[in-house]
C-alpha cells in the first residue's frame, strides 16, 4: 500500500504505462504492448511545482497524460487528493475532472482555429456548469484574459491573429478558468523566444502562488526547470533516473545522466570549449544507473590494505564528499583519516558480526556508494585437512558478510536516491581453481547473491556491480604466481565502471583472458586449472 500521509494532491507509486505497438501488430492478433515508462514514484503538494525532465522519447509527455488520467496506467498506483484513481472509469472520473487541467506544448494546435478567443476560454466554464449562461461565461473569460496579462480586446480575435506567446497565455487562462487544483504543463515554453518565455513562466509562477495550484512542469530545458520548480524528477527511456529538490539536483546530481543533461545547457557565457564536451551516445553500460561520484558519500569495507586502501585513495582523488573507511581493527586505517582530515572517517567494522554492522548502518545513514571489499582467502582446497570449519569461515565472510552488508545498507541507499553497491568478487566466481577451491565456492555464491540483489533493487535504480579481477598483487595472493595486476589498477577500473554504470567488470588481462576462454571453451579452462592442486 502507498505511504501517503494525505497531504499530497497527487501521488504516484511505481506507476507504469504500456501502450500497444501498432507498428509490430500482426493480422488477427492483438498488438504487442511496449512499456512507455515504469516504476515512477512522485508526489506533489498544493502550491508546489514538480518538474519532469528528460529527452524526447523518455516518456515524460505520456507520464503527464497519465497523471491527469488521459491515459489509464497499466501498473502502479495513482492517488489524487488521497483517492485512488488508477483505474477509475471515465464516468467515475467526471466529478473530479474539473480539478485537473493540462496545458499542451503547441498552443496553435490546442485551440480550435474557428473559435474566437473568448469563446475558447469560456468553454470549460460551460462544460462544468461553472457559469449560468453563455453571457456570464464570456464576462468571466474577459476577466481571465486580464488576469493572464492580455488585452481583453483580443477576445474577439481568432487564434491565427495572435502570436505564440499570446496564445500560450490564452491556454493558461483556459486552464485556470475552472479553478483546478492540479495543472500539468507540457513543454509550454519550448516554442517561445526568451522574452515571452520569461513572461509566461512568471505568469505561471504567480498563479501557482495566488491560487495555490499544484503544478507539474514538463520540460527538456533544465534552466527553465530551475527557475520555476521545487522538486524535479529526471526520466530516461521511461525510467526514473533520480529525483529530489531542485537545488540539490543542480548542484549535486547523483547520476551521471543528470549531470550530462545539465552540462548540455548552453549558458550565455562565451566558451569555445563547451562544444568539445559533446559526446556521442556510444557509451555502453547502464545509462540510467551510471553514477556521479563527485559529491557522494561512500563506505568501503576491508580498508586496511590492498584494494580497499587503494579504493579509498582513488575516491578521495575523484572528489567525493566523504568516505567511511572501515576495517576490523580501527588502528590499521588511522593513517588514512589523518592524511585526509574531514574527508575520510574511519570505523571499526566486523562484517561477520551483526551488531557491529547494525551500528555502522545507523551511524552512516548518508551512504550512497557501498563497496563490499572485505574478504578472506585461506588458500585451501575443499578436501584439505582444516576441513569444514575453514570453509565455513570463508563462507561467513565472503558470502554472509556481503549479504549482511547489502541487507543493512539497502534502506539507506533507497532513501538516498538508489546509489550503488559494489561487490568485490573474483574471476574465480566463474571457475574453480582447486588450489583455493573453498574460496571459489564462496565467491561463486557471492556472485549469485550480487545478481539477486541487483534484481531486487532494480526498481530503486540501484547500480549493483560485480568486480571480478584475476590475481591482484596483494598480501592475499602472496603465493600466487604472476601475472598480477596492481591493486590501484583494480580501484581505477571500479570507479570507471561506476561512472559508466557497468554491472560486471573484469579488471586485468588475466581476468579478461580467462573470461574469453570460459566463453569459448569452459571445459578446456577447467581442465587447465585442474593442474593447480593444493599442496
Amino acid at each position, binding site marked *: 500500500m502507498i505511504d501517503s500521509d494525505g497531504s499530497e494532491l497527487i501521488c504516484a507509486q511505481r506507476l507504469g504505462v504500456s501502450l500497444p505497438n501498432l507498428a509490430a501488430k500482426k493480422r488477427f492478433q492483438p498488438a504487442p504492448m511496449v512499456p512507455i515508462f515504469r516504476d515512477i514514484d512522485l508526489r506533489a503538494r498544493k502550491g508546489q511545482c514538480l518538474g519532469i525532465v528528460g*529527452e*524526447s*522519447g523518455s516518456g515524460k509527455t505520456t507520464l503527464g497524460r497519465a497523471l491527469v488520467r488521459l491515459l489509464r496506467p497499466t501498473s502502479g498506483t495513482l492517488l489524487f487528493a488521497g483517492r485512488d484513481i488508477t483505474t477509475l472509469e471515465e464516468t467515475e472520473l467526471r466529478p473530479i475532472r474539473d480539478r485537473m487541467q493540462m496545458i499542451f506544448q503547441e498552443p496553435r494546435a490546442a485551440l480550435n482555429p474557428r473559435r474566437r478567443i473568448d469563446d475558447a476560454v469560456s468553454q470549460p466554464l460551460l462544460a462544468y456548469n461553472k457559469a449560468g449562461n453563455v453571457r456570464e461565461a464570456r464576462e468571466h473569460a474577459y476577466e481571465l484574459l486580464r488576469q493572464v496579462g492580455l488585452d481583453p480586446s483580443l477576445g474577439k480575435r481568432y487564434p491565427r491573429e495572435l*502570436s*505564440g506567446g499570446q496564445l500560450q497565455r490564452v491556454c493558461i487562462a483556459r486552464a485556470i478558468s475552472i479553478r483546478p487544483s492540479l495543472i500539468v504543463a507540457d513543454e509550454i515554453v519550448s516554442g517561445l*523566444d*526568451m*522574452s*515571452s*518565455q*520569461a*513572461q509566461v*513562466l*512568471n505568469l505561471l*509562477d504567480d498563479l501557482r502562488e495566488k491560487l495555490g495550484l499544484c503544478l507539474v512542469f514538463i520540460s*527538456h*530545458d*533544465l*534552466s*527553465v*526547470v*530551475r*527557475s*520555476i520548480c521545487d522538486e524535479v524528477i529526471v526520466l530516461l527511456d521511461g525510467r526514473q533516473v533520480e529525483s529530489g529538490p*531542485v*537545488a540539490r539536483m*543542480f548542484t549535486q546530481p547523483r547520476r551521471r545522466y543528470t549531470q*550530462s*543533461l*545539465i552540462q*548540455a*545547457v*548552453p*549558458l*550565455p*557565457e*562565451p*566558451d*569555445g570549449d*563547451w*562544444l*568539445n*564536451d*559533446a*559526446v*556521442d551516445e556510444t557509451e555502453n553500460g547502464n545509462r540510467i544507473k551510471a553514477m556521479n561520484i563527485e559529491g557522494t558519500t561512500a563506505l568501503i569495507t576491508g580498508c586496511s590494505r590492498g584494494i580497499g586502501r587503494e579504493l579509498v585513495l582513488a575516491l578521495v582523488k575523484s572528489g567525493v564528499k566523504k568516505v567511511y573507511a572501515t576495517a576490523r581493527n580501527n588502528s590499521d586505517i588511522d593513517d588514512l583519516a589523518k592524511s585526509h582530515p574531514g574527508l575520510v572517517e574511519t570505523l571499526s567494522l566486523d562484517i561477520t558480526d551483526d551488531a557491529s554492522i547494525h551500528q555502522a548502518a545507523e551511524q552512516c545513514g548518508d551512504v550512497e556508494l557501498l563497496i563490499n571489499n572485505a574478504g578472506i582467502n585461506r588458500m585451501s582446497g575443499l578436501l584439505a585437512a582444516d576441513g569444514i570449519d575453514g570453509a565455513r569461515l570463508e563462507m561467513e565472510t565472503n558470502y554472509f558478510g556481503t549479504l549482511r552488508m547489502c541487507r543493512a545498507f539497502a534502506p539507506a541507499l533507497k532513501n538516498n536516491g538508489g546509489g550503488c553497491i559494489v561487490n568485490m568478487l573474483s574471476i574465480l566466481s566463474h571457475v574453480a581453481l582447486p588450489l583455493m577451491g573453498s574460496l571459489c565456492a564462496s565467491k561463486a555464491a557471492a556472485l549469485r547473491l550480487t545478481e539477486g540483489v541487483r534484481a531486487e533493487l532494480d526498481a530503486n535504480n540501484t547500480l549493483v556491480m560485480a568486480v571480478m579481477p584475476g590475481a591482484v598483487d596483494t598480501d592475499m595472493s602472496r603465493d600466487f604466481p604472476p601475472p598480477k595486476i596492481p591493486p590501484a589498477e583494480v580501484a581505477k577500473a571500479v570507479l570507471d565502471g561506476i561512472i559508466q554504470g557497468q554491472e560486471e567488470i573484469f579488471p586485468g588481462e588475466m581476468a579478461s583472458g580467462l573470461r574469453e576462454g570460459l566463453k569459448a571453451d569452459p571445459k578446456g579452462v577447467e581442465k587447465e586449472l585442474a593442474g593447480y592442486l593444493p599442496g
Partner: protein
Amino acid sequence: MTSALVVHDLHLAVRNGQVLLPILRGINLNLPQGEIHGLVGESGAGKTMLGRVILDILPPSAVITSGNVDYPAHRSSPSLNRKSAHRRRPHISLIPQDPLTSLNPVKRIGKQMGEILRLAHKDSSQQIHERAKQHLREVKIRNPGQVLQQYPHQLSGGMRQRVLIAMAFSTEPSIIIADEPTTALDVSVQQRVLRLIRDLQKERGTTILFVTHDLGVVAKLCDRVSLMHSGMILEQGKVSDVFQSPSHPYTRSLLEAIPRYDKPREKLSPVANDLQTQLIREADEYDRQRRV
C-alpha cells in the same frame, strides 16, 4: 581578411494592399570568410526575412527599397529568372529550422539528397549514391546506406537535422544560413548537432550566419553577434565583448531574461514593456525621417 558576405544599408518592405510595411531598416553586415555570425532577435524582429534576402528566396510581396547584398568572393551576374535558388546562388545553402517540414515526407532520403547533388555534379546514379553516402558519413551517421533508403518519419529529430546539415554542406557552399537549426531539438542532441556544424565549418572554412533566439547557443558557437529588433541592428560586435559588456539596454535586458540553472530560483525579468515600446517608437521615427 576577405569578406564573404556584405549587406549594405538594406531596407526591405512588404506590400500590403497599397501600403509598404517596412520590415528591415538599414541592415549592415560584413562577414569575413570563415566566421560564424550570430543573428539574434525575438520573433518578429526580421531575422528570417534577412536570411531570405541573402538566399534570394523572398516572397513576391517583399520589395527591397534600397541597399544591396554582395558576395565579394562570388560575384555572379544578377538573377534574371526565378529558377531554383541553387542555380542562382550556388555558393549559399540553408539549414532550415524544422527538419520534419523541410524534408519531403513521401520521398526517401536518398532521392532527396540525390536531387541536390545532381544539380552540382554530372554523375551516374551510382556515383550520386556513393556521394550521398559519403556526405552522411561526414555528419556521423553510422549506417548511411540504410538511412538513404528510409523516409523522413522513420528518423529521429536529431537524425533528420543531421541529414539536412549533410544536404546543406553537400553542394560545398561558401556561405550557409542556419535558421534556428537546433530550436526543435533537446539539449543533449542540440549540443552534438552544434558541434557537428562547428567541426564541418572549421574544416571547410565556411561562413555561417546563425539565426537564433537563444543567446546561450550564440555564446558557445559564434565569433561575432548582431542583435536585431524591429528590423534594425541594435548592437553588433565580438561575442566576448557583447556578452561581457553589452552596450545597448536591449541586449542587457535580453541577457537578464534568460533562466540559468546555475543560479538559485528567482523571478525572471522579461524585456520591459517600456523598452519594447520605445524600440518600436524609434523604428517609427526612423521611417518618418527616411520619408522626409
